[in-house]
């Protein structure tokens, strides 16, 4: 008999007053009993709508059933057959729009907490199992993977499991891409990312840091080195600015720079060698998950007032509901329908405020969201000493400019033919934000998985 509680078991969290003073993880994870109880809410329905909502196609009812039966290792085996990064996905996937969004239990109540269960199983496995994964039998073929974010790690893992010798090339000094430089410690502990990457190394994936493809080596040279295919998962790292006066003042950061200083370079730590401004009043411009991350980091660095400045309304905000709620609990102030038009500086060239234009919502635009239009004559000044621009990113031009025959669209995104990620160059595949522009971890993982399959088929077809 399933557990018919209409509500999801709540996630234990650090209380807001405590967590705004530290960078430790906010969500503490289910206990064993909570996980088993929650898993028993699953109806094991035959048509498995949840699976259709998962970009990497995890057999969700099967892993949940094993949790309900208290077979945690069995649950982990089901998960790891489909995902290389369960501890990551369980934490950062927008489950409400994916698996949980399709859950039958969600029709009359709350869906099964699939993401929370995935996290529980991954954490349980990590804490209870020392067994090293078996190194797959090598098939003698080499593949190069560019970047080490979610799409690349997934592609590398899938290919390694299929017997390929995979080398991952990362431009920064630590692998993990956005999981390491972008998503903060309090949402995704870096130790977890490191362990997931260690797992890939254990199955034979080589990871070379400090290699900028397009500069240190080119894609053509990767082929010369004996690779039979290349996967590009270099992400969308190029930050956008608004192009308003005063954006070059000291105290204006791109979200990339702000978060990289904090997450990758650990500027939040007491004796960090890389600095970040400790501002009193911070405005984060944008309404996505990255904006929430930046705002919550600013709060933890000791800012008194942190504003989210967003030109549309709360309804239109692209950030996950949970992230917005966490931000609100932490005292982040939401200034919606508000668009900065100028940054003001003091005589030392530092930010002292920003002029904002109030907005109202007009007709829906191409994205289907109501377009914000300026409200005549209503501007005001917000006193801030730091501004973080979180209005999106686009793919880095370094690879496309050094790879003849690799075509991109007008946004700089790599053009691929359909779902398998094949680019306009033979044997070169791409996936993740480098193809779609900034999106989610799980979509990137799905793309990495599909490209890995396509690469496997391509190399087999040559034999």
């Amino acid at each position, binding site marked *: 008999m399933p557990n018919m509680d209409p509500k999801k078991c709540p996630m234990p969290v650090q209380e807001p007053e405590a967590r705004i003073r530290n960078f430790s993880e906010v969500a503490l994870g289910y206990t064993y009993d909570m996980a088993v109880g929650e898993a028993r809410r699953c109806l094991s329905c035959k048509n498995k709508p949840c699976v259709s909502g998962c970009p990497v196609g995890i057999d969700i009812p099967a892993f949940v059933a094993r949790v309900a039966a208290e077979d945690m290792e069995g649950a982990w085996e089901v998960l790891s057959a489909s995902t290389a990064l369960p501890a990551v996905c369980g934490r950062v996937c927008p489950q409400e729009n994916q698996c949980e969004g399709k859950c039958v239990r969600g029709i009359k109540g709350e869906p099964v907490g699939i993401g929370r269960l995935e996290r529980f199983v991954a954490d349980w496995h990590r804490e209870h199992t020392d067994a090293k994964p078996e190194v797959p039998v090598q098939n003698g073929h080499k593949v190069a993977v560019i970047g080490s974010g979610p799409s690349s790690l997934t592609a590398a893992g899938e290919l390694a499991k299929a017997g390929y010798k995979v080398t991952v090339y990362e*431009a*920064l*000094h630590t692998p993990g891409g956005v999981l390491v*430089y972008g998503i903060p410690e309090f949402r995704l502990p870096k130790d977890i990312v490191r362990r997931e990457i260690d797992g890939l190394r254990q199955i034979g994936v080589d990871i070379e*840091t*400090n*290699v*900028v493809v397009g*500069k*240190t*080596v080119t894609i053509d040279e990767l082929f010369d080195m004996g690779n039979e295919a290349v996967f590009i998962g270099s992400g969308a*790292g*190029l*930050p956008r*600015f608004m*192009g308003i006066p005063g*954006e*070059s*003042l*000291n105290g204006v*950061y*791109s979200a*990339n*720079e702000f978060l*990289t*200083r904090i997450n*990758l*370079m*650990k500027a939040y730590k007491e004796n*960090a*060698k*890389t*600095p970040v*401004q400790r501002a009193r009043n911070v405005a984060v411009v944008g309404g996505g998950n990255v904006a929430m991350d930046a705002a919550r980091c600013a709060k933890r660095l000791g800012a008194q007032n942190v504003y989210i400045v967003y030109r549309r309304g709360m309804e239109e905000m692209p950030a996950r509901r949970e992230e917005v709620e966490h931000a609100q609990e932490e005292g982040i102030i939401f200034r919606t329908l508000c668009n900065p038009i100028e940054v003001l500086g003091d005589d*030392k*060239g530092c930010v002292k405020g920003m002029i904002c234009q109030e907005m109202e919502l007009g007709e829906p635009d191409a994205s289907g969201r109501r377009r914000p239009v300026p409200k005549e004559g209503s501007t005001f000044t917000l006193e801030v000493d730091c501004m973080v621009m979180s209005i999106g990113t686009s793919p*880095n*031009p*370094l690879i496309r400019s050094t790879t003849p025959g690799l075509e991109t669209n007008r946004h700089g995104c790599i053009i691929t033919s359909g779902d398998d990620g094949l680019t306009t160059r033979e044997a070169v595949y791409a996936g993740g934000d480098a193809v779609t522009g900034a999106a989610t971890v799980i979509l990137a993982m799905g793309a990495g998985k599909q490209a890995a399959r396509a690469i496997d088929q391509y190399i087999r077809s040559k034999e």
Partner: protein
Amino acid sequence: MYRIVEKEALNPTVTRMVIEAPLVARKAQPGQFIIFRASEDGERVPLTIADYDREKGTVTIIFQIVGGATMELNALEAGDSLTDFVGPLGKPSDLEGLKKVAVVGGGVGCAIAYPTAKRLHELGAEVHAVVGFRSRDLVILEKEFSAVSDRMLMMTDDGSYGEKGLVTNALERLIQEGNRYDEVIAIGPLVMMKFVCKVTEKYGVKTTVSMNPIMIDGTGMCGGCRLTVGGQTKFACVDGPDFDGHQVDFDEAIQRGGMYRDFEAHAREAACNLFKKEAE
């Protein structure tokens, strides 16, 4: 890890190091830069490539000991290794086709100006070098410069060596003497480059400067190195580091360069306080 093959103090505050980095050496060209981290928790710091040897697989860097990261680097000796060394980054200098060039170097900037002068000399250009230092004991690469230039003017702020005065005085004199340069290449402190550009603008001589702003990744990701060039935002790491000096907003660059001055001062003060406590 990237092993230090050679280390040499060029003067009390400037050090030259030869680093084993075969992948970087294979691709390096004049004008490009690298980013290093001396240790596991070190800062990422960009340095322009001073020289490279493709056969030996080494890259030479020359740096001034100014802050925590360069102090940490300078504490390493030949045989030790750097944790990270990535490159070559940025666009190479465009030196092809130049017939007559004035290369202006200021202080440690001479370390970068020298390979440029050398390359121009190899390409057959007539090179006039104008190098400036605060005083005699800070002079570096004098012999090297004179070996690759057709004319060399040595300037010191205090007159303790060469001629007393600024590089801008010497450059203006050369131009007034009737030297017609295809290009002036200026590498040094921002203030020096700004005033070199003011001089050359008067005479309508094309001027290229090498910018070295604060940056983290060096691949276009952080945007911390942004500059205003000809009214547009440019990233020094991917669009530069060389720019048309007459288009660069130097005052803004100088302001941005001071962003973490307080942090650095605090760090120094903290270190001094520690020393004081130990002394008590």
